[in-house]
């Protein structure tokens, strides 16, 4: 029962689970002709999942998709293309080994036969001229040679090219993230012309001003649900931010711990991101827990890795005064040695201390592991089992044991709690607090705002730079969202 026959697309009760994680929990969403719908929400709010469904790259677990008034039972990418729905994905989907014209051919099955190269070149060149006048991209350029901004321009222009299939709706997922202000303005102006011509757009952007100025209707998502949907005129910045973050002020977990801290202890880390233009430094002292916040992938991990590298070889702009250990976020690829036992996985950071002559002493290795098994609560019948015998949360605990069992006075945490159950999380939070009281320094990058409650000081990152520097008492979720979504680039 797809209502509203005029709608280009309508999703009713769309649900999607990835394993135990619910990405979308019963979302209703629709786009009418001649409107630009703005879609906003924090990382992991479900925007991308929803858009993948609209584009046909993901199939909902339950719920209904209707296009142009008819219900689609076997909706797919090629069906979406036939029905005139295109998507510009956030990750670039161009082939770097092909030319601009050849990449255009990939999206148009009808560009074939004699003279297809010329037709493809003319098609994409005309669209680039229309959207980005003065773009200086040639159809014969190899995409791999273009700058990231130009690639994005090609990708956007390609989505708007038309051959035999119709074109009604284009999804733009962060279309301006790699564009400078000039080209971003050109694109948004084109979007307005496109919409004025009776076609539709979905605009996803972390620059709230862009959405407020260009969308006709704004849909706000949070935790896999649509929380508000209203005409763009009914929103202002504050209402958007409030809707995205949840207005209710939360209880601070461990405010009392902070008060007990001495004012100024020994400096452990002073670091400046490579692209920081003003003189802002990240400063961490002994016994402090420093939070690195902001949207995912805005330079937090890069800075942690730079600090880690600076501990062994001096680097400009980074000062590190004690041994460092890193708890990796992606434990499968960066953290765990899959063939090794739990004991060996814990001991690898402390080999110098575990040595007996030239060889590693299995006894000392086992002792170290036993101490931390007890302290951190790794649940296993035998620490000599393979690391994969542990559950995900316990694997992560083993990685914490590796870092905390070492001589490192500075522990870098690269969003280590991804996909860890709440029980393990609380245990680790306590442990971190305890170790900090003993004088260890923690630099903690997290994408979960609640975890920042454990921190004494928070630096918010945007585009590789520190944009805000908040003390614990100033910390609210709204403040973090405000700074990470700030329009000033």
């Amino acid at each position, binding site marked *: 029962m797809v209502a509203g026959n005029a709608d280009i697309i309508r999703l009713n009760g769309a649900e999607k689970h990835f394993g135990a994680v619910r990405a979308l929990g019963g979302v209703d969403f629709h786009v009418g002709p001649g409107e630009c719908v703005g879609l906003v929400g924090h990382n992991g709010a479900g925007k991308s999942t929803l858009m993948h469904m609209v584009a046909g790259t993901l199939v909902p677990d339950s719920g209904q998709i209707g296009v142009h008034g008819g219900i689609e039972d076997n909706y797919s*990418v090629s069906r979406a293309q036939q029905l005139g729905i295109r998507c510009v994905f956030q990750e670039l989907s161009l082939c770097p080994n092909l030319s601009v014209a050849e990449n255009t051919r*990939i999206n148009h099955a009808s560009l074939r036969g004699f003279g297809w190269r010329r037709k493809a070149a003319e098609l994409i060149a005309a669209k680039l001229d229309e959207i980005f006048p*003065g773009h200086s991209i040639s159809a014969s350029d190899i995409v791999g040679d273009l700058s990231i901004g130009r690639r994005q321009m090609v990708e956007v222009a390609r989505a708007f090219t038309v051959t035999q299939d119709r074109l009604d709706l284009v999804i733009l997922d962060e279309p301006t993230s790699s564009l400078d202000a000039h080209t971003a303005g050109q694109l948004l102006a084109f979007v307005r012309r496109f919409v004025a011509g009776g076609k539709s757009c979905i605009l996803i952007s972390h620059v709230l001003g862009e959405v407020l100025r260009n969308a006709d209707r704004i849909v706000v998502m949070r935790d896999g649900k649509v929380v508000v949907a209203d005409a763009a005129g009914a929103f202002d910045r504050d209402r958007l931010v409030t809707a995205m973050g949840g207005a209710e002020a939360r209880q601070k977990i461990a405010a009392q711990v902070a008060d007990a801290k001495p004012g100024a202890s020994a400096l452990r880390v002073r670091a400046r991101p490579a692209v920081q233009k003003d003189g802002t430094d990240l400063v961490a002292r002994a016994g402090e827990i420093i939070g690195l916040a902001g949207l995912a992938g805005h330079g937090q991990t890069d800075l942690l890795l730079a600090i880690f590298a600076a501990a062994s070889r001096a680097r400009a702009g980074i000062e590190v005064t004690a041994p460092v250990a890193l708890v990796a976020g992606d434990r499968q690829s960066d953290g765990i040695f899959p063939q090794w036992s739990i004991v060996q996985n814990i001991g690898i950071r402390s080999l110098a201390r575990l040595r007996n002559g030239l060889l590693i002493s299995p006894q000392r290795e086992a002792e170290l592991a036993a101490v931390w098994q007890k302290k951190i609560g790794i649940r296993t019948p035998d620490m000599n089992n393979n690391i994969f015998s542990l559950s995900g949360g316990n694997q992560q605990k083993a990685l914490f044991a590796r870092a905390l069992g070492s001589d490192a006075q500075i522990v870098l945490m690269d969003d280590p709690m991804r996909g860890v159950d709440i029980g393990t999380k609380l245990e680790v939070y306590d442990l971190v607090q305890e170790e900090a009281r003993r004088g260890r320094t923690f630099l903690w990058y997290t994408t979960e705002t609640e975890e920042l409650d454990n921190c004494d000081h928070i630096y918010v990152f945007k585009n590789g730079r520190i944009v805000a520097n908040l003390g614990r008492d100033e910390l609210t979720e709204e403040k973090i969202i405000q700074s990470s979504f700030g329009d000033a680039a």
Partner: protein
Amino acid sequence: MRPEMTAASLDTTARSSAERGALARARLLRGLLPALSLALVLLAIAWLNPRAISYFGFSLMLNLAIPIALATIAQMFVIAGNELDLSIGTFVGFVGCVTATWLKDAPLIGVAILLGSIGVYALLGALIHLRNLPSIVVTLGMSFVWQGLAILVLPKPGGKAPDWLLAFMAFKPPFVPFPIIAALLIGLIVHFGLMRTSYGVILRGSGGNPAALGRAGWSLLKTKIVLFALAGLFGVLSGMALIGITTSADANIGNGYTLLAIAGVILGGGEFVGGRVSPIGAVIGALTLALAASPLLTFMHIPPDWQVAANGAILIIVLAARVLISRRER
């Protein structure tokens, strides 16, 4: 737009077009590298033995280059899809054995076997895609299968090539030696098919960014099957050409071709991942390896035992030159 913003963006435009000019020059240089290395080897031969640079000399020196070039093209199709074929050498040997026995004695059965073996290659492509298996493992296993089949077909060296094949490979065109014409034809035909046709773009795209291709609605299963079937087809052509030259077969005759073919693709400017391959470069790479292997060494009075080492040395030198050029790009 504010005036200073426009000025700034014009400035970056000018700068980046200069950058792209430099990139294009570096790409041209890298594209010419295979031809340069071939020219160097030819110069060395001409200097050591001027009489070799003649119609007869080239016919002799490049005789075995045709099967190597065909096997290299076969490998190139596989590499274009980000895979590697470790079985092409023993496959060429198997095809050789079939050509020297069944194809001569019972042509229909021979043709059926060869077509069937191309079908097996296509199925391997499907298997590798569907089960997400590493192609190195699958083709390594298949190399033993082909070798075993070759021994079953021809337990000891012998057999005889069909007369029409012998006549074809012995063709002596006026002025230009046959191997050079054949190499040119192979290079140009494959270049047209892979680099100029609209489906060739899809095949190369499947190596460049498979996810993007899938999102655009193309079947990655089909591209993989087509690439592997093409590898099988050129493997068959390679085996037949080889037997047309040697006139009889041996189950081990193609074993060295696996590494020669990989080396030829890389020497010709191809890369192991990313769908960056060049058919003409691959043919030139095969010619370079064929020339450098035996004629050059013979003229330098170096024993043939050093053949493989010499090929390795050429490969290292050319790859080092390519790295130097790429470094200058940045």
